């Protein structure tokens, strides 16, 4: 249980999340994968806070902030998904191509 173990764990979680983004065809599936990435990042923060922080209180506060921001982001993302579902009746990433040029 050393720092490098935790770092490796967080990297593996991030990699899993990236794989999920590239593989999921549904927008909500992509959001789930984003949650996985954020989770991994949070674990990274917490590990460093435990093993290295000269200021343990700050090391405990930061993951809170990350969670708060992640909550906001989820709220907005899901609002967008609802709006898109209403407009297009589908959430298939392959069919949503308005950003093409």
């Amino acid at each position, binding site marked *: 249980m050393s720092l490098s173990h935790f770092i490796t764990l967080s990297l593996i979680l991030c990699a899993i999340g*990236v794989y999920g*983004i*590239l593989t999921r065809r549904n927008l909500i599936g*992509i959001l789930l994968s984003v949650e996985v990435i954020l989770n991994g990042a949070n674990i990274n923060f917490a590990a460093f806070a435990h093993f290295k922080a000269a200021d343990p209180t700050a090391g405990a506060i930061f993951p809170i902030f990350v969670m708060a921001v992640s909550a906001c982001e989820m709220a907005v993302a899901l609002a967008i998904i609802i709006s898109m579902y209403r407009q297009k009746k589908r959430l298939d*990433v*392959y069919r*949503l*191509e*308005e*950003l*093409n*040029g």
Partner: protein
Amino acid sequence: MCIAWRNLMADFIFTHSYLIQAFPLLSFVIIGLGMTKAGKDTVKTIALILSALSMIYALLTALTYLFTVIGQPQLYPDRSLICFNLAWLNFSQNLTADMGIYLDPISVMMIVVITVISFLVNVYSVGYMKDDPGFNRFFPLMALFSFSMLGLVISSNILQMFVFWELVGVSSYALIGFWYEKPSAVAASKKAFVVTRFADAFFLIGILIVSFYSNSFDFQTLNSPETAAMLNKNYLFVSLPVNLLTLATLLIFAGGWGKSAMFPLHIWLPDAMEGPTPVSSIIHSATMVVAGVYLTARMFPLFAASETTLAVIQFVGAFTAVFAAVIAITQMDIKRILAFSTLSQLGYMLFSLGVAKVVTTGHHDGGINQLGYSAAMYHVFTHAFFKCMLFLGAGSVIHAVHSNDIMKMGGLKTLMPKTYWSLLAACLAIGGVFPFSGFWSKDAILLAALQSGHNFTFLVGLITGGLTAFYMFRFFFLTFHGQPRSEFHDVREDPWMTIPIVILTVPTVTAGLLEHFFVSQVTVATLAEGGHFAHPGWLPFVASAAAFSGIALAWILYGRGKIERAAVLQRAAGSLYTVVYNKFYIDEGYLFITHKIIFRWIATPIKWVDRTVVDGTINLCGWLLQLGGRGVRFAQNGQLHFYLGVTVIGFVMLLFLGK
């Protein structure tokens, strides 16, 4: 007081001398741009009025010039006057091209000739082109020609002259191909333009050489002895010694070679007869083709500094004179006879300029014989009037008979009397019979040749004189005498056409009185005379004898319109006759060279390079752009997975880059 008033008027007239050119330009702009569908009467009135105004102003300028410049030799020692000079293009700090008007004896003489003949031909055209659907197109083009030709003769520097030189070529092209539905007319106009343009390329190189060395385009600078001395250096070109002065002057003369249709660039002038007859009469007899002679006269001091150039001019002129005369003997088309006659007379003018330097004897450099110069310009003057008249008369005959072939004519003496008597005067003039104008000018030319010691050229001129008389009277007798050889319908003399011809009889007969004036005043003032020359008394008699023998031979063969005796001679000459009749097959030679050599070996590879290399490069650029576009379109496909994947890959790459 009177003198002050006169000087004031003279100043006014000279300052506004651009009006001489402005009136025809106005005519071109108004009729050509505004009135292509207007009524014929409007067009006719405007054209004639503006042409008349130009003529009146030109005569006024000439009179003023006579009284102020020639009348006051102490004020104008070289008898020349620059009316105004505006800087136009600045090529470098030292070299500026100007636009100006330069009056000296030859330019004043030319503006009189051009404007008078232009006016008379305009009057004639009203009758000749009466039924032509292109009536409204004809007069602006003629006005454009007048404008260009006037600009050519009054230019103050060689670049301005070149500009108008090309403009004259364009007007000639437009007017030769006037009846553009006829393929032969189109071919002829192209031929004229291409041949003269080819010669003009060399002209331009000559201009560049002289202006580069002398840092000026002005005629006064180029004709000065300093320029001649500066250019008179020998260079080695591929181990051959080349004198720069000779090279430059020969190149400049090349422009005149083409424009005045000297052998071997004479091929365009006979074909130029495809244009309407008024066009032939003004452009291809009286004015444009003498542009080469005019150029030589204008640049004479520089040309005279190089003996080789003058020798070349003399040889080319003399050869063309006799060559064209021989061909003219056999031609059947009335306008072609006159075209070859023009070629022959142009040869006279040029060799007269060429003999203006005395043959060098021993260690003395030949002096200048001013008579050669004056005689050439005098012949330009007289030739303009009688040749114009001949063409106008031929046009009347063609209009009446509806054919160009003299073998179909005959017996027109009673049907067209005014034309008959006027053309008789013209033929006598061109034949050189005393006291008509042509006698005096030809006599002066032969005298100049004799005085300068060029005896062989004198002989050639004499023989050509005899030939000239012969073929002109062949033309005259076959057209007007004897019985009609074909059916004529409704032969009338249109007054619009006959009056100018009759008017032109006056200078044809009386211009001989001006001989003394020309010889004394129309000279190159900046060059000194090279000594006193004798005037052999036997000369006029020998010349007249040549003329009369020519006329007599024509009378024997063709008098009373009989062609049988000539037919016998023709059969006897056999193949020689055929060769001469076909103009020595020079046209065929040119066609051969053009088609077999230039088209196949030069034009085809160039066309290949143009299609494959040049177009290919541009197509390649377009193709590359399309390729890029396809690439960008691939990357911007709107697929979220693609974008995210590329982002992560980019991040990884940055990681490695950062290391």
